[in-house]
């Protein structure tokens, strides 16, 4: 045949012609390629087998994507295809010697070998993985912006065969919207004949129906609760939420297990017929079709029509023989054995439901029809069954098909290269149930997810006396039922939601480097974190703290509610006063912190950490309901912005923008007052997380930009600059302030954090009180300490040692520019009954400090 390079794909440097309708497999097979891969463990030759995407044999690399099934991938000119397994090549694989070393590669190889000496496995592991691997991902580009898209049809029909199409049409006639998906094009895997003709007729009707949307090249890969059906279309991942699902995924030929069953030249019948009937390529010249069913005869007819010399035989297949490829087959009929020379053995041993999806749908409104329910249905039966399901008529529960005869010899699991001898070995070692034999041998756990072999594994177990567990029941099926690439699985990754404050655009305009902080995107720095730090310590700076959780709590029981919620006193706060408060869980562990501020008239303003707001809203509401308190909890986190004005010159700056007195007497430390700043009404809170004179200006969010701009403009001659999270983390660390989640642990009580002062244990009740009482009955074995290092502090997470013994780790750590030493927080445990004072981390000596590193008396806060 004449062809041009424009009509060819590149196969390992060789130009292979592509004909219309070709799959990669059919194009390669027509060109004489017989070995498509090497097996996982023993590097046995593997050729085309199922041609329906069910087995692992034809997995190749296509255009850089490894593990692509050539048989269900459309061939296209210009494609670059190569085989991934085998060294130096799949055809001539030196590693094929492993097939002669079964005794050195026993079942459970990983658990038995290379354990001693201890250095052996780390050295061997990369080699083992490379030998066993199925290719490498070479692409380094960022993930494509692939969409995950919801769909809401009334019915999802999976599979475009006779039963599936009939179901879709019946559902559409009943006025329901239908989404029908097929992993290829409806009927494309079916050889010409009555089945194919009927599929074409029904597919044409479905295409003409306005009620039916047909998704081609779109395998359903999982059914989840809802039901939710995930469909992997070429350009988008569909998340379909139908009222009901109809699974019509058809059947696959029974995998045959006998010596030589994985030789290139051994085929499943539908695959061989498809190759000949659809692609016009003969699987062999002298073909033996094994099986006595009418379907076997039909496939034999297809192969004969394509020009093959076909012999149909009934009987037990004893062995397939050959060197590089199949040469003859041994058949046993009664007491007689017959050897037949052939170059293709076509297995028509019966059909097995392709029911991986149906098995995922227990308890969901999912009907299974056609061959997927009852393999071997006639055309009319499949059509009738599909139509009944489409109309929503219940179907009688199907009986599970009988298991095949227990395998005697041969490869059971093609994916994992598990033979009957290995199942036997597992049995001899005491593994007695399907579940643990499967785990130990890894049979059924490869790319085909047991589609080929699970019935044989079960048959093996069922045939052994003394088997435990449900050997006869179906195995669990899990998504994905068809392989998907990491890129495909990452669909919707761009849907990651970041929260922006009202000042987000201002930060970008100031060239801030933004970083994720919980759900927020916040400025890490504005180009010079150290200069930002010094602006706070020596001049004036602003920071966007609109991310803080902000709530108003009101209602007749508001005061009682907060008194009961917090471990500190609340009801004694006069309007305009506030208190730092930790919030405890029931076990007495710190879960968040913030302030509680009295607004008057029984109304309260409470704040939480930036990352805690959403959870704390739920926590507050849960407790209100638990207490039976009538309170109203209004989340102002998004409604209100907040800007922290900090630094020794912050009062001077604010005074420029406010006509109200701001001196220490008029507005002392730990007070809140209403303040108009640059014309913006603010709830001003004087506190000091950063250890300097500072004011948090809480204000309506739609005035944030106006206030921010005014502050920066008014502070221009004061060398004002905004500071980001880098500076903030350092500033608060110098004060020894904790960050919830970073410095706290899951079991951090206030006492362990040296914050017992935040708890009024004498209160009759508060959330966590009982937990603290229980904790107090035992001496704490760990606590958070502040550690000063003479030189640069080791990094966060570094281990802490005392006298050479590991006693804890650092949670926060930095070099303090103001103090010119390393400062850190870290957890330590007792040594000989006492907490150590002298610590060492990564060779740096440190000592525990009992107070804040910076301004321990807090004079600067009160300035």
């Amino acid at each position: 045949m004449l062809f041009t390079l424009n009509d060819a794909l590149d196969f390992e440097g060789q130009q292979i012609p592509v004909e219309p309708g070709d799959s990669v497999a059919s194009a390669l097979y027509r060109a004489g390629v017989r070995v498509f891969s090497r097996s996982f463990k023993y590097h046995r030759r593997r050729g085309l087998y199922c041609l329906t995407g069910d087995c692992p044999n034809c997995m190749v690399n296509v255009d850089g994507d490894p593990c692509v099934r050539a048989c269900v991938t459309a061939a296209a000119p210009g494609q670059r295809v190569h085989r991934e397994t085998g060294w130096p090549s799949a055809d001539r694989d030196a590693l094929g010697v492993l097939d002669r070393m079964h005794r050195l590669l026993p079942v459970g190889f990983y658990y038995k070998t290379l354990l001693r000496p201890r250095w052996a496995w780390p050295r061997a592991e990369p080699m083992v993985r490379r030998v066993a691997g199925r290719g490498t991902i070479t692409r380094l580009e960022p993930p494509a912006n692939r969409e995950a898209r919801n769909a809401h049809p009334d019915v999802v029909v999976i599979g475009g065969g006779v039963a599936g199409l009939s179901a879709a049409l019946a559902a559409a006639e009943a006025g329901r919207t239908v989404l029908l998906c097929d992993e290829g094009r409806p009927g494309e895997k079916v050889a010409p004949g009555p089945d194919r003709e009927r599929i074409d007729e029904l597919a044409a009707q479905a295409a003409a129906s306005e009620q039916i949307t047909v998704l081609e090249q779109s395998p359903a890969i999982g059914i989840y609760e809802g039901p939710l059906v995930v469909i992997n279309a070429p350009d988008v991942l569909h998340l379909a939420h139908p009222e009901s699902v109809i699974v019509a995924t058809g059947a696959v030929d029974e995998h045959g297990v006998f010596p030589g069953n994985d030789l290139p030249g051994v085929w499943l019948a539908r695959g061989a017929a498809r190759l000949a009937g659809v692609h016009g390529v003969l699987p062999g010249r002298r073909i033996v079709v094994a099986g006595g069913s009418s379907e076997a005869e039909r496939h034999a007819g297809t192969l004969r029509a394509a020009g093959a010399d076909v012999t149909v035989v009934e009987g037990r297949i004893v062995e397939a023989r050959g060197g590089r490829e199949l040469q003859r087959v041994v058949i046993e009929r009664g007491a007689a054995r017959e050897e037949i020379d052939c170059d293709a053995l076509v297995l028509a041993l019966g059909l097995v439901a392709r029911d991986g999806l149906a098995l995922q749908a227990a308890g969901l409104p999912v009907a299974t029809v056609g061959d997927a329910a009852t393999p071997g249905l006639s055309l009319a039966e499949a059509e009738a069954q599909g139509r009944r399901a489409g109309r929503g008529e219940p179907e009688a529960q199907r009986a599970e098909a009988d298991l095949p005869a227990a395998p005697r010899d041969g490869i059971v699991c093609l994916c994992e290269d598990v033979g009957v001898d290995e199942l036997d070995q597992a049995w001899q070692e005491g593994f007695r149930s399907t579940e643990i034999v499967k785990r130990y041998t890894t049979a059924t756990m490869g790319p085909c997810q047991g589609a080929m072999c699970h019935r044989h594994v079960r048959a093996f177990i069922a045939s052994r006396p003394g088997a435990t567990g449900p050997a006869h029941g179906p195995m669990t099926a899990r998504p994905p039922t068809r392989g998907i690439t990491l890129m495909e699985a990452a669909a919707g990754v761009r849907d990651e939601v970041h929260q922006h404050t009202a000042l987000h655009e201002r930060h970008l305009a100031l060239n801030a480097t933004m970083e994720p902080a919980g759900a927020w995107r916040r400025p890490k720095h504005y180009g010079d974190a150290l200069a930002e730090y010094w602006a706070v310590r020596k001049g004036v700076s602003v920071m966007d703290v609109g991310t803080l959780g902000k709530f108003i709590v009101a209602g007749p029981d508001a005061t009682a509610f907060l008194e009961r919620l917090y471990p500190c006193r609340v009801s004694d706060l006069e309007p305009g006063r506030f208190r730092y408060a930790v919030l405890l869980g029931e076990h007495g562990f710190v879960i968040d912190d913030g302030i509680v501020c009295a607004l008057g008239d029984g109304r309260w303003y409470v704040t939480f950490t930036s990352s805690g707001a959403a959870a704390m809203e739920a926590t507050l509401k849960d407790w209100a309901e638990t207490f039976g308190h009538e309170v109203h909890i209004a989340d102002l986190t998004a409604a209100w912005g907040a800007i922290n004005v900090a630094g020794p010159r912050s009062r001077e700056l604010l005074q420029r923008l406010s006509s109200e007195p701001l001196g220490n007497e008029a507005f002392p430390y730990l007070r809140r007052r209403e303040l108009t700043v640059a014309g913006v009404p603010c709830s001003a809170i004087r506190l000091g997380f950063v250890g300097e004179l500072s004011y948090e200006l809480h204000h309506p969010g739609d005035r944030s930009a106006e206030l921010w701009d005014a502050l920066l403009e008014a502070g221009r001659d004061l060398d004002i600059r905004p500071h980001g999270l880098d500076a903030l983390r350092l500033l608060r660390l110098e004060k020894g302030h904790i960050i919830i989640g970073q410095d706290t642990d899951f079991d951090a009580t206030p006492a362990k954090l040296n914050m017992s002062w935040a708890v009024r244990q004498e209160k009759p009740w508060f959330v966590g009180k009982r937990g603290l009482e229980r904790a107090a009955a035992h001496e704490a074995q760990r606590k958070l300490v502040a550690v000063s290092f003479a030189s640069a502090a080791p990094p966060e997470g570094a281990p802490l040692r005392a006298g050479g013994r590991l006693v804890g780790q650092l949670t926060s750590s930095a070099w303090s520019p103001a103090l010119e030493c390393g400062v850190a927080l870290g957890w330590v445990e007792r040594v000989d009954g006492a907490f150590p004072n002298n610590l060492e981390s990564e060779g740096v000596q440190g000592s525990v400090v009992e107070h804040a590193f910076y301004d321990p008396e807090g004079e600067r806060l009160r300035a």
Partner: protein
Amino acid sequence: MPELELFPGGAVGCFARPSALDALAEGADVPLRVAPTELLLLGARSALAELAQRLASLDPHGLALDLSSAHATWIVRGDDRLEAFARLSAIPLPAQGGFAQGLVAHVPAKVVVREDDLLITVSSVVSHHLRDRLPAVCGDLAEAVAR
């Protein structure tokens, strides 16, 4: 063509006893009853003082707050608006006049179905996300325009 526009007039959040909110919701243009004790009145910012006064008479402990900065309500118009919504959300769209709450483009949202449009209310801190996602997901329907 799905078209996006911000709903004008801000929003007022009312927190009070259910009976008080029932009375307050009557006659409101776009009342969203997000919880038994929470009512969001879209477009009602200018009526805040009046609402607060009325609420005080219905429930002296009730709260009426200007939550205009807390929420962004997008009006989605166009023949493809229902398909656009369906692509963005797993929640079934209620019938006309109905109200639903759930995730839209992975963002918690409140949805109102009106005769000619949809209203999708989300937190202002993620408003940009919905604005960006709708055109991205519906690019093949038609070009969505955010204005």
